[in-house]
């Protein structure tokens, strides 16, 4: 009984963790999908978002849900900036060369953040109560993060599937030349999707602080980068809402398997949950080499 309580609590927490994972991956997926750019600097943009949330809250008492909007704007601006200054020149270059560029951008951002704000670990508390579900207690901030990520995922889905721009973007992804003769502004959409991808990522940094409101530091992004890569693939690269589902699976496995693995004597179940999450990634990839929602 005790076990079941724990297990169901873990599952609920897994869903919430998954939502955050999904959210932080959507931008990465979008950028990969459209520009075939593997953004190794992903985590640094998350860090920027986290700092925005932190500063807005500490300096002006601005609630994170509002600074998310600001973060989106800042992120989009950063996205356009780095697109025109760096990425634009590499579109024709071999795929991996953009990886180098994003690596450098990531370092650059982290180092600038360190130079400006110092290497301190910061945090803030946005106390908005908590939700008691019996098996577990969840701070409302996390609930907001969950809801926001669903809203954003749905919005992104609708944007992709229902709007003219989203449709055009699919054309750009499939064949540049083909898109061009249809009157689609290919370069414009490249810039736009890079900007939106970065915007989403920076914004997800804000939501991550709803989830983990502490430990905000110039190098905080690294952990998220690796996970975001894996989740992006799990969901089928190039599919932002696939990333969202990939996030759920990853979160569920990570948190949900703890109680079970805890039954094995003499091991560290928490580390094994991470091991299991990656093992499941491998198995899923073998069963479905294009990711969960990926297309052939």
């Amino acid at each position, binding site marked *: 009984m005790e076990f079941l309580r724990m297990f169901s609590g873990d599952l609920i927490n897994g869903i919430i963790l998954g939502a955050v994972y999904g959210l932080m991956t959507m931008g990465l997926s979008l950028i*990969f999908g459209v520009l075939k750019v*593997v953004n*190794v600097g992903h985590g640094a943009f998350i860090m920027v978002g986290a700092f925005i949330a932190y500063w807005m809250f500490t300096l002006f008492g601005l609630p994170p849900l509002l600074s998310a909007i600001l973060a989106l704007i800042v992120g989009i601006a950063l996205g356009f900036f780095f697109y025109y200054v*760096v990425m634009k*020149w*590499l579109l*024709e*270059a*071999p795929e*991996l*060369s953009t*990886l*180098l*560029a994003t*690596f*450098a*951008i990531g*370092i*650059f951002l*982290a*180092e*600038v953040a360190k*130079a400006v704000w110092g290497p301190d670990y910061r945090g803030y508390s946005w106390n908005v109560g908590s939700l008691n579900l019996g098996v577990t207690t969840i701070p409302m901030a996390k609930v907001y993060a969950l809801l926001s990520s669903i809203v954003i995922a749905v919005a992104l889905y609708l944007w992709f599937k229902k709007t003219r721009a989203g449709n055009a973007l699919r054309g750009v992804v499939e064949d540049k030349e083909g898109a061009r003769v249809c009157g689609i502004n290919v370069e414009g959409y490249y810039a736009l999707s890079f900007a939106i991808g970065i915007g989403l990522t920076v914004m997800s940094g804000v939501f991550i602080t709803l989830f983990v409101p502490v430990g905000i530091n110039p190098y905080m992004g*690294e952990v998220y980068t*690796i996970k975001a*890569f*894996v989740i*992006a*693939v799990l969901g089928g*690269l190039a599919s932002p809402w696939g990333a969202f589902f990939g996030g759920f699976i990853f979160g569920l496995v990570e948190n949900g398997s703890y109680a079970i*693995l805890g039954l094995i004597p*003499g*091991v*560290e*179940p*928490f*580390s*094994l949950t*991470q*091991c299991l999450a*990656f*093992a499941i*990634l*491998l198995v899923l*990839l*073998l069963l479905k*080499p*294009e*990711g969960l929602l990926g297309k052939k």
Partner: protein
Amino acid sequence: MNKGKYYPLFVAIGIFLVLFIFGKFAQGMWEPVALIMFYVAVGEAFNVFLGFTGYVNFGYVVFMGLGSYGMALVVSSSSMAGLGPWILIPGFLFAAIMAGILAAGVGAIALRLRGAYFAIATIGVNQGVKFFIEGAKIWGGSEGIIISKPLKVALGPHLANAVTTFWADFLVFMIAILAAVITIVFLHTRLGYGLIALREDEDAARVMGVNTTKYKNIAFLVSSILAALVGATAWCLKTTYVFPDDVFALSYTVDAIVIVMMGGTGTLLGPVVGGLIYGILKYWLGILLPGFQLLILAPFIIIIIILFPEGIVGVLKKRVRGKKLEKFIA
């Protein structure tokens, strides 16, 4: 037999020789040279797979990590201490075997995946192995292995110190040369041609008679074992400890990619040039502006890649096509 095609190898070895002499005789330059050679070796080993197949082994560091574990396990096992300096031989063997077994396994399974899916699957392998070691508490779990003392017991304090401060670096030179030789052999044999064909178009290559599965696996295995050797020397022997957190850090894969891409993938001299530039830039910037070197390094990398999208050697190779220099650059 056309000897000309080995000229690039001599260029590479020439560069190594200059580095070696400089490091040995310029005061205080041995360690910087060793660092550069570490980058070169990491790049070369990585390039054997990436350059020839176009597959990105993002989990590359797992093989370096396993290599350093292999060496550490042998050196720290008391039953081997009697071997004296010979202990390094089973150490390298074990490192190679461990990496080889993992590579064969991963190759058989993950090499069916393409593009980014393969890349990320290998990240999964790296993280999986790391968390397994920590979670299942094998090989010291998260505490890792420290070989400083066992090495002294086996080799005596003097030799142990020489191994960690000179011979380990020297071995990195040797591994770099080995990797360069392998690269040039690959470049000029059927194996290499088959790999390049599969890099460019895997399906077409198969129809042309290339057994792509076999070739991919060979390159993967060779690259992984080279990585293991680098890990066993540059990490285990040199720093005398193996902590899982440290030896499975994906940032080293990113370093490898940066080095190879800066230099030029699929070329022999690319990783050498890339490693040189990366090492020298980091070293000098770090000396000049401690704490700000990365801030300056980042724009440098961006400029290099914009100017040389196919890497410095890649672009150079194109420039010298049809010229006299051509046969020296590959």
